[in-house]
């Protein structure tokens, strides 16, 4: 059911009931008030008229008494005198119609004598009622006073042969000598009474009449002057009829209005009665109810009309009213349906309509926005999660791609190196890694590292660290220097505060020499063929990227044939069992012992099994990495093949005279390492500049110190290390002194270092190392560019 229909169905009946109640209530209240007022008014009116009638009767009676008194004193048997008296009386009393003086027969000598004077159109007429045709002695107006000796009003009657009109007569005895000698009368025409009651008529249909003691009714139109019969007879004839009710009420004097069924007409009337004491008659006024209440009925009709009008107006207004609710509601419904369809664009009108609707619209809009934002947030979160997963996958791929997969990694070194590595991540993306690659001169490098944190950033960091180590290795830097430079590069721009523990080793399969530098990483366990094991002491150092400027140490020891170095990460030693006990170094040593003499792969797997057995059901907490570098039992120290110098080293006195030797040797070594004449010349210039710099700045003239020049030939090129033990110099400042533009007008410094940088691919200066100050020059070998 729509709002409009509901409003119509509810409000209109309610309104009608309310208005109806108002109309009827008002009518009822007004009716009481009106009736009270009518009661008062009619009572007053009836009283006034009753008094008037009373006065008429009373005065007529007085006239009759005076007339009787006068007659008693005169010879009323004299018709002339009597007639004069009567005429006089009529003259004095215009209300009277006629007056008679009837003698008791026998009183007068002439017999019956009854002079009568009455009014006609022409004046006062005279008649003798002693006419035998009339025979007044039989008339009630005469007989009654004679019989009772007192005056009385007659019932209305038609005085045929007398006045010849309807009248009522008061007759009074004339006493003379103790007896009634005659009767005097005064006539009041019924016509007079009728005229009076007619005047009394209230309203249009009000009806007044007088009821005589015998029940005759005197009234105007409805009675035609005088009723034929008696009210009492009418009442008695039909019990329960309106006549009976009316008769009862008239007999029962009551000053108030009474409601009766009007017998004179169909309908209800209000009755008021007043007695006329002088005649013993009763004045009755019937006031038709519809007439009394007509203004009220009219009012009621008007009110009802107004109510209907109001209802009609409201019925007309309701659709408009309903639309003020239903239009925005329809909009809200539409909006929520759009929401349900997932369309959150577009706002509802917030500026119009009732306040509640406006607020609802506003809430709706806010809700829509909130939902849209939420959906967007969820979508974004979902896609972020997806991105994150993607990132993890990439990171995992990067990280897995980093790890060497093929073992043995260097088939050409079969029988000389036994190398095996494994890494088992605890989660999708591990923080551990290991690496192995070839260095120059048949040597290999091994790396085991553990990056702080997990996930994509760690994987990238790991890749960076690995790449740095790979790049820095094989350029003549010692393992400690490799780590120092790697740390420098990683720590320099380390916004994420990550770090990596790492151990880097360079291994020469020919001699079994293992040179190691560690950065916060545990040293390897060395497993001997007899099952004993030991852990070489290494200086604990800071992890890479932890602190700029950290220094590292190179430790070296030799692997005897059959010995294996087992590199691990803390995922091995810190693996926990159910009781939170850690695997630890001792268990690592014990675990490795039975595998002594076995292959690197067997050792690695044996240790992993031991760790798994120890952890039991407990979930792996950290990545586990094992790298085993084993010198096969058959490998013996061997001579370096010709033309592949591992390194050549010169220990020289710090004197300028050594320079030609150094230059010759440099050139020869470079040629031997595969560089052409031009490149060898460039390397020689660079070496001279460095050596001269050392001789001039580090020691000064006349020094007894020595310095070293060392050449290391690798796969990528040749490294020259010049080590002194004097004062370090400010490499950066010196480097920036010369910009490559010569000028005759100014002294030149730094040209030498400028040439060094121009001719070498890499120039590094390591002041204050354990060895001393080391200048490291690297020249890459370019197969395609043999000339220069």
């Amino acid at each position, binding site marked *: 059911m729509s709002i409009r229909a509901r409003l119509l169905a509810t409000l209109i009946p309610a309104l009608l009931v309310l208005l109806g109640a108002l109309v009827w209530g008002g009518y009822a209240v007004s009716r009481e008030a009106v009736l009270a007022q009518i009661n008062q008014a009619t009572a007053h009116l009836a009283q006034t008229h009753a008094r008037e009638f009373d006065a008429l009767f009373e005065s007529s009676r007085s006239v009759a008494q005076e007339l009787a008194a006068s007659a008693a004193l005169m010879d009323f048997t004299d018709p002339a005198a009597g007639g004069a008296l009567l005429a006089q009386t009529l003259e004095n009393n215009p209300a009277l119609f006629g007056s008679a003086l009837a003698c008791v027969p026998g009183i007068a000598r002439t017999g019956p004598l009854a002079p009568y004077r009455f009014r006609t159109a022409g004046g006062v007429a005279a008649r003798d009622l002693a006419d035998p045709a009339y025979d007044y002695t039989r008339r009630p107006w005469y007989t009654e006073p004679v019989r009772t000796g007192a005056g009385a009003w007659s019932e209305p009657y038609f005085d045929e042969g007398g006045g010849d009109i309807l009248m009522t007569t008061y007759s009074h005895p004339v006493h003379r000598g103790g007896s009634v000698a005659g009767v005097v009368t005064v006539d009041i025409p019924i016509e007079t009474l009728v005229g009076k009651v007619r005047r009394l008529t209230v309203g249009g249909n009000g009806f007044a009449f007088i009821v005589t003691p015998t029940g005759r009714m005197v009234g105007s139109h409805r009675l035609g002057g005088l009723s034929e019969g008696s009210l009492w007879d009418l009442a008695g004839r039909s019990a329960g009829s309106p006549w009976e009710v009316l008769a009862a009420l008239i007999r029962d004097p009551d000053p108030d209005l009474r409601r009766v069924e009007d017998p004179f007409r169909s309908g209800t009337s209000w009755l008021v009665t007043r007695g006329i004491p002088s005649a013993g008659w009763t004045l009755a006024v019937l006031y038709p109810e519809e007439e009394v209440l007509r203004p009220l009925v009219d009012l009621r009709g008007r009110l009802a009309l107004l109510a209907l009008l109001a209802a009609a107006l409201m019925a007309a207004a309701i659709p408009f009213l309903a639309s003020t609710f239903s239009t925005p509601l329809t909009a809200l419904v539409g909006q929520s349906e759009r929401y349900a369809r997932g369309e959150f664009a577009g706002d509802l009108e917030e500026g119009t309509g009732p306040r509640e609707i406006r607020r609802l619209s506003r809430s709706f809009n806010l809700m829509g926005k909130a939902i849209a934002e939420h959906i967007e947030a969820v979508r974004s979160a979902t896609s972020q999660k997806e991105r994150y997963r993607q990132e993890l996958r990439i990171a995992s791929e990067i990280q897995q791609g980093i790890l060497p997969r093929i073992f043995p990694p260097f088939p050409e070194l079969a029988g000389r190196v036994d190398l095996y590595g494994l890494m088992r991540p605890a989660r999708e993306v591990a923080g551990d890694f290991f690496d192995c690659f070839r260095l120059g001169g048949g040597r290999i490098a091994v790396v085991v590292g553990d990056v702080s944190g997990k996930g994509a950033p760690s994987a990238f960091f790991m890749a960076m660290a690995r790449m740095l180590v790979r790049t820095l290795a094989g350029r003549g830097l010692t393992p400690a220097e490799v780590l120092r430079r790697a740390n420098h590069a990683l720590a320099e721009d380390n916004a994420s505060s990550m770090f990596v523990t790492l151990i880097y080793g360079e291994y020469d399969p020919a001699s079994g020499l293992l040179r190691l530098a560690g950065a916060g990483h545990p040293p390897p366990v060395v497993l001997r063929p007899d099952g004993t094991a030991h852990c070489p002491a290494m200086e604990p150092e800071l992890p890479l990227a932890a602190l700029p400027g950290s220094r590292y140490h190179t430790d070296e020891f030799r692997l005897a044939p059959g010995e294996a170095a087992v590199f691990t990460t803390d995922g091995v030693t810190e693996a926990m069992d159910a009781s939170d006990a850690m695997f630890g170094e001792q268990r690592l040593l014990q675990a490795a012992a039975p595998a002594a003499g076995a292959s690197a792969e067997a050792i690695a797997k044996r240790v992993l099994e031991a760790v798994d057995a120890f952890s039991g059901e407990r979930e792996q907490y950290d990545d586990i990495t094992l790298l085993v570098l084993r010198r096969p039992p058959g490998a013996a120290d061997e001579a370096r093949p010709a033309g592949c110098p591992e390194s050549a080293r010169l220990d020289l006195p710090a004197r300028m005279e050594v320079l030609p030797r150094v230059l010759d040797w440099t050139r020869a070594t470079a040629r031997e390492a595969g560089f052409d004449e031009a490149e060898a010349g460039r390397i020689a210039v660079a070496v*001279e500049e460095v050596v001269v710099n050392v001789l001039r700045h580090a020691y000064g003239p006349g020094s007894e110190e020595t310095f070293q020049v060392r050449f290391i030939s690798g796969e990528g090129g040749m490294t020259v290390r010049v080590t002194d033990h004097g004062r370090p110099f400010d490499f950066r400042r010196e480097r920036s002194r010369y910009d490559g533009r010569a000028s005759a007008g100014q002294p030149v410094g730094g040209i*030498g270092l400028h040439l060094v940088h121009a001719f070498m691919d890499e120039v590094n200066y390591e002041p204050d190392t354990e060895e001393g100050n080391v200048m490291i020059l690297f020249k890459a070998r370019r197969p395609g560019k043999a000339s220069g």
Partner: protein
Amino acid sequence: MDLTDSTRGKWTVITVSGRIDATTAPRLDAALQDAIRAGRMWLALDLAGAPYLSSAGLRVFLSALKAVQAGGGGMALAGLPDPVREVLEVAGFLTILPVVAGLPDLEP
């Protein structure tokens, strides 16, 4: 390193045979300074026999150049082997030192 003097027109030609390095450069410097002190302000260096040059030699060239220019003369390099030319070029000296292919190309 061996040094020989000769004269060609207004030019005093010093022919260098052998490396010009930090150990030999002082001798070249002394020879150049002797000539300048002798009032020979037009100095030509024949480097065809000098396969090697380091910054020590460059410094010698530069101080001689300053001196001859102050004395109203000039300086020229002739017969540069590739490695030497490369060093001069890398050091930016070719912009201040005139170079000729051979002694006959010296300006008269």
